[in-house]
């Protein structure tokens, strides 16, 4: 008694496994595969799609092992932690900082030259306070100090043309001390944020 012979089809299959060709499809099989692929899977319903999007809303999206897309920082995280006194001071004298920033530089670095009103949008002073500062016998900038308060990598942003850009956020605190002829001093703090966008290289 001998074992039955294996059928030809199974023998071909075993041989294909042995010589590593089992995973190669014939042109006929590929053509049939393509004909099946014409039928697209049904889209998931809008409500289910929204539920899935909700699941991943706080999860970073890794483009590859070097680039990870982060979610937008919450406003809570970006808000500077300051005392009530400083908040009031900032809200009332926010315009002072812009003037003081430029005025301070001008006063300290170029004492002989007359001060010129800045033209850039970033530093546009409050008109009335500018007059107040430069009127002569009122407050004038005595010192200026800038401190790097926080840095944040916001991840990689994709704009057009498939060019990724890394977004970096720098937060500074500018501190200006103003004094008048009577020796009274006012210290003003102004938070400032810079967003730097750098082209990101892709390997």
């Amino acid at each position, binding site marked *: 008694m001998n074992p039955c012979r294996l059928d030809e089809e199974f023998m071909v*299959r075993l041989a*294909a*496994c042995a010589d590593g060709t*089992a*995973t190669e499809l014939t042109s006929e*099989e590929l053509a*049939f*595969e393509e004909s*099946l*692929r*014409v*039928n*697209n*899977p*049904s*889209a*998931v319903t809008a409500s*289910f*799609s929204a*539920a*899935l*999007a909700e*699941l*991943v*809303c*706080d*999860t*970073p*999206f*890794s*483009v*590859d*092992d070097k680039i990870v*897309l*982060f*979610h*937008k920082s919450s406003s809570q995280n970006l808000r500077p932690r300051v005392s009530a006194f400083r908040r009031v001071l900032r809200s009332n004298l926010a315009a002072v900082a812009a003037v003081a920033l430029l005025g301070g530089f001008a006063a300290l670095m170029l004492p002989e030259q007359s001060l010129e009103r800045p033209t850039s949008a970033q530093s546009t002073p409050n008109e009335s306070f500018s007059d107040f500062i430069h009127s002569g016998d009122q407050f004038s900038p005595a010192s200026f100090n800038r401190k790097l308060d926080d840095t944040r990598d*916001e*991840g*990689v*942003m*994709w*704009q057009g043309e498939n060019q990724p*850009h890394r*977004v970096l956020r720098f937060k500074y605190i500018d501190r200006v001390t103003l004094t008048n002829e009577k020796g009274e001093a006012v210290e003003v703090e102004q938070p400032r944020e810079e*967003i730097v*966008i750098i082209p990101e290289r892709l390997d």
Partner: protein
Amino acid sequence: MSAIEATQQTSPATSAWRKWLDEHAPKLFLFARNQTRTHEDAQDVLQDAIVKLVGKIREGEFVGGQEAWQPYLYTTIRRLAIDLSRKEDRRRRREDHVSVGIEDDQTEAFHPWFHSDGGAEENRSQLEVALKALPEKFSEVIIMKVWGERTFAEIGEALDISQNTAASRYRYGLEALKRELNTARRLGDLSI
């Protein structure tokens, strides 16, 4: 300035995730449909699989990049579907609710597996019927290969079989599917 505004309005991760889900969720859902009994079960299974994936990503436990997400999800969907099926079997045995299967079939008619483009409606429904008629071990490989665009190695990994076995099942499955579709078409012709 517009670039800055863009980053502040839409998080890059949110839009990237949305795009990824739009592209891959239908394929993964088709596989989940194949692995489960009902449309709702498939939704639960896919949702749980994505919960597991994002949990691992958030905790830094996920090994590999984005290219590893789909293989992980296919494997997880299958495992979750098996678990769900076992639970469901136990529940049905307890309740001895024989009409559930009929109700499931009626509900499924409202949730086709494939979307039709105009006159291809008949082909779509024939394909769905033919896939459902195949043994699951064939249909799952076909769905992963044709619509999931996975390699035999990835399919083998997800199903815990060798890539040669995956390829064999795929061939047998394609043959059986072709026969089913031909039979369906012949019957369709006869009925006209």
